[in-house]
């Protein structure tokens, strides 16, 4: 059983590693740098976990094709839904989207990409 688990783990990490070596995939995480809880987060068509202030999500691997066709940042905070069209030209292998501020009136998500 142990051997099967090790084999599975090896196959998984190898294939993930291969995916990342392929320029078509990018790792993305989100960090909540606001004072508010943020829920129902969706970025480039992928769902992320709810984030409390100063909380960071795990990385999610997303394909470039998906990024190109789903360039929208969606989240809920303070009882409002935010939807924003965002940049779809990401060239590095890994990004953290740091949410710095939310403008409720204009539904603008101020974020910084690291």
């Amino acid at each position, binding site marked *: 059983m142990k051997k099967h688990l090790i084999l599975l783990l090896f196959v998984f990490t190898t294939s993930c590693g291969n995916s990342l070596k392929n320029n078509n995939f990018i790792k993305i995480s989100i960090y909540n740098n606001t004072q508010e809880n943020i829920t129902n987060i969706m970025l480039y068509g992928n769902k992320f976990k709810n984030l409390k202030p100063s909380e960071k999500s795990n990385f999610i691997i997303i394909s470039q094709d998906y990024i190109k066709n789903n*360039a929208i940042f969606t989240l809920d905070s303070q009882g409002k*839904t935010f*939807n*924003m*069209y965002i*940049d779809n030209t990401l060239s590095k292998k890994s990004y953290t989207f740091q949410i710095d*501020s939310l403008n409720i009136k204009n*539904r*603008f998500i*101020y974020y910084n990409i690291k």
Partner: protein
Amino acid sequence: MKKYCFSILFIFIFSSITFSQAIRKEYKEMTASERIALRDAFYQLRDLDNDGAGDANPNDDDLINDLGDFHLNFFSFDNSADPTQPDLHLNLPDEPTREIFLAWHRAMIFELEQYMQDINPNIGMPYWNTIQPNGFDNNAVIADALATLFTTDFMGPFDADWSLGRNIGAQVNALPDVNDLPSIFNQTDFFTFSNRLERRSPHNGAHRWVGGVMQTSASARDPVFYLHHTFVDKLWNDWEVPNQNSSYIKTDMLRYDGTYTFYGVTKPLINPNDIVDAKVYGTFYAENQLALLEDYTVSNTYNSTENFYYQYTIESGNNFTIPNTKDCKFESVNEILLTPGFLSETGSNFIAKIDTDNDINTLARNGVESKMGVSNPFDVNLNTQIIIFNEELAADNVTIIKSFPNPFTDKVYINLSKEIKSCKIKIYNMMGKVIRSEIYENVTSIELDGLYDLSNGVYVLEVSDSTIEKPLIVRRLIKL
């Protein structure tokens, strides 16, 4: 027989769709007076009663706000607690039973255009062709847009007056180029075409490129939204004419379901399948200095005279018919051509007029001259949380730096916790270009003034110690 005829008449009256008319042209083909008329009409649409500051209930006659809020509130529920709620965007490919994106925006533009034609019957919504040549220079596109689109006589003043927060051209690669079109237009299935058009740069590009509210679900607050979506509508029309394949599963639409009321008028139910042909609304798209009006019958359902106004050549034939008792006018600054297939029946009223003074007639509100500059910002939260991000600080840095106010309008104050012998201040715009660079000697506080002329938007402030050539703090600031 009588009963049978009455039933037919009953069905005819209550199934007819409201018609209007317009020649929609690229904004660069508008005359000077058309530009001003459109700009003024947008201002007036925020105050249909013309109450001005004395309006006790400013929202009940503010069409831009009403449409803007509707668009915002129903943008998308995909990731909400109840993703099955009907919404306006991003329903394809997984939820075709809720899809209404192209048809809804067509109805929305038509609704706005009708109110505009109450102000000036010669107005037709122009479009902004955002498709760029391959390898375009973003800076050149910005310069062109600032010189032709976002000018004082046209879309420019709304940024400050309505606090839109535009950040034009900041997303450098956002606009589409010609290479982005084939993979959309070569689709023969309507939902595949619609999904690609919605999600890719011919639609989302302008939203990202203009920035501010245009980038968000509140985008319909920016008048340039309507010029952009009129172009998206034209793209749909360009696809539909050869394919004749647009079809929806839904038979009504949000807002246009017979229940929604604005300004005392309940919006009639619109079946999206009834408006897949742009000519249903009397809409003709002109380009390259030619408006081709054909395959159309004047009905005067909405306006007592159907006006078609265009600076360049209006050519009409090929089954363009003005029936007995109907009223139609063509007006051009340059040329009107009537070709075989054009028919103005006996008893109809048709005028072909050359606009010799090149003036669309900017008077509005029953002869009262239109007023500009109705400063009427939407509810903007000036208490925006200060945005701070700290890049790597020098390891031995103990200087605490405070900058305020943020957002700013004219100047920024910078206070240092200790004196810096040579302090370098740089301000970058969001394209990474240095727009201000100064060095201050032996300072503990700095007043950066003369910032009033900066465009509204996001900037980056960098404070460095010149002696060690390392940034002490990098901070994002907002200009209102």
